[in-house]
């Protein structure tokens, strides 16, 4: 019987010890966290063992939650991306069996590109920080020159930015107590909507695959809402996640109300 909480503690403790809390806050986002995991595991970035990295990634999210840190939606989006990549990797490679004419790209390829690109700018940011910074390393004259009081700040180009123009307009509008300029907000997909969608799907069918839940929507909000919805109904034990190892697809099925084996219940909450 595994206790995921202990497991996650061990997982990180061995390499970071007491300094772990500091690390938790240091990650700038899911890509940063993934880079860290890849380094820690000493694996080739071009051949990421998705299953292991995904597991550690999810454990990390759990740890964030335990430490009462906000698990930003961006981390959840990446979680669902990882799970999608994982399930795609588990699908039988049809192209190969049919002679490999149309070789499909490795499902991990895009992620690898993003990680490498991100790493590049992360380093660039570090280089920016060590440049002589005005107001930190170098200073300019700050005295008012009394004999030149009439001189106003000068500039090679105009000092007004477009942003200021829009902000000025917004200020004007904000001061008017009329609804004239009401703008229609974009549609929002809520987690509740997606929970309802998934549950009604399960009324009609015995089970749905993880992938098909994500296939309809392409927007970020949709993916986040869907992912959170799945997590939520799992937690409420309304559904069960199972994986048929011979195909590797993750299935979401209605939970059977009668006693679920406790052990199993913990492994697939």
């Amino acid at each position, binding site marked *: 019987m595994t206790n995921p909480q202990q497991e996650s503690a061990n997982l990180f403790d061995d390499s970071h010890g007491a300094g772990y809390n500091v690390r938790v806050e240091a990650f700038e986002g899911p890509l940063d966290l993934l880079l860290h995991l890849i380094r820690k595991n000493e694996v080739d970035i071009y051949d990421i063992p998705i299953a292991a990295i995904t597991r550690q990634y*999810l454990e990390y999210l759990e740890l964030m939650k335990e430490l009462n840190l*906000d698990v930003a939606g961006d981390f959840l989006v990446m979680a669902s991306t990882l799970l999608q990549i994982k399930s795609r990797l588990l699908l039988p490679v049809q192209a190969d069996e049919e002679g490999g004419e149309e070789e499909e790209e490795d499902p991990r390829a895009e992620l690898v590109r993003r990680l490498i690109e991100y790493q590049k700018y992360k380093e660039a940011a570090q280089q920016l920080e060590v440049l002589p910074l005005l107001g930190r390393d170098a200073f300019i004259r700050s005295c008012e020159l009394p004999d*030149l009081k*009439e001189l106003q700040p000068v500039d090679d180009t105009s000092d007004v930015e*477009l942003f200021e123009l829009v902000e*000025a307009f917004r200020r*004007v509008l904000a001061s008017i107590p009329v609804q004239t300029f009401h703008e229609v907000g974009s549609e929002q997909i809520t987690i509740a909507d997606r929970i309802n969608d998934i549950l009604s799907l399960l009324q009609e069918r015995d089970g749905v695959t993880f992938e098909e839940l994500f296939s309809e929507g392409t927007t970020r909000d949709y993916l986040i809402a869907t992912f959170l919805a799945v*997590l939520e109904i799992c*937690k409420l034990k309304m559904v069960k996640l199972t994986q048929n190892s011979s195909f590797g697809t993750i299935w979401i099925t209605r939970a059977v109300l009668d006693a679920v084996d406790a052990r199993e219940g913990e492994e697939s*909450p």
Partner: protein
Amino acid sequence: MTGNLKSVVESLIFVAETPLSLDRLVSILEEHERSDIRAALEELLADYEQSGRGIVLVEVAGGYQFRSRPEHADYLKRLSKTRPPKFGQSSLETLAIIAYRQPITRAEIEYLRGVDCGGILKTLLEKKLIKILGKKDVPGRPLIYGTTREFLELFSLKNLASLPTLKEIQDLAQPPVFEEQGELPLAVATGGGDTGE
């Protein structure tokens, strides 16, 4: 060491907002002797004394300050003369209203801003940032205003369609949707899912 101390003193006087007195320098440079600081300051004064440098070090209001050479005042005034238009908040607001709501009448602008805009409209017209487009077909036939090519150039805009919309700016400040969803427990790896509803 005096060389470096002199350099530090030079930096301090240059950066300080007000004239720096010897006392002030001594309190800032606590690790140095007063006599050394005084010596550095005197060397510095001597350096700036010689020849017709553009920056002079003057003793003023009980302290020391760098100033521009007074003989150059005529040149320095040209700095401000060639200054591009600088916008006050009210000009910017008026310009923004015209940009986003053109064609627009003065009465409409004043309704939005709640204040008289006659003077500002005149200035904007003089600066060629706005122009009179014609007269509105309503009683009184008021003038209607719009922005000019110069306006586009000022903001490096290709055309009016390149103006950002309000919504685009507001969206920047909007927290992403998922943060509005309140507190949702993450259930991925939890062992103790105790919400047995």
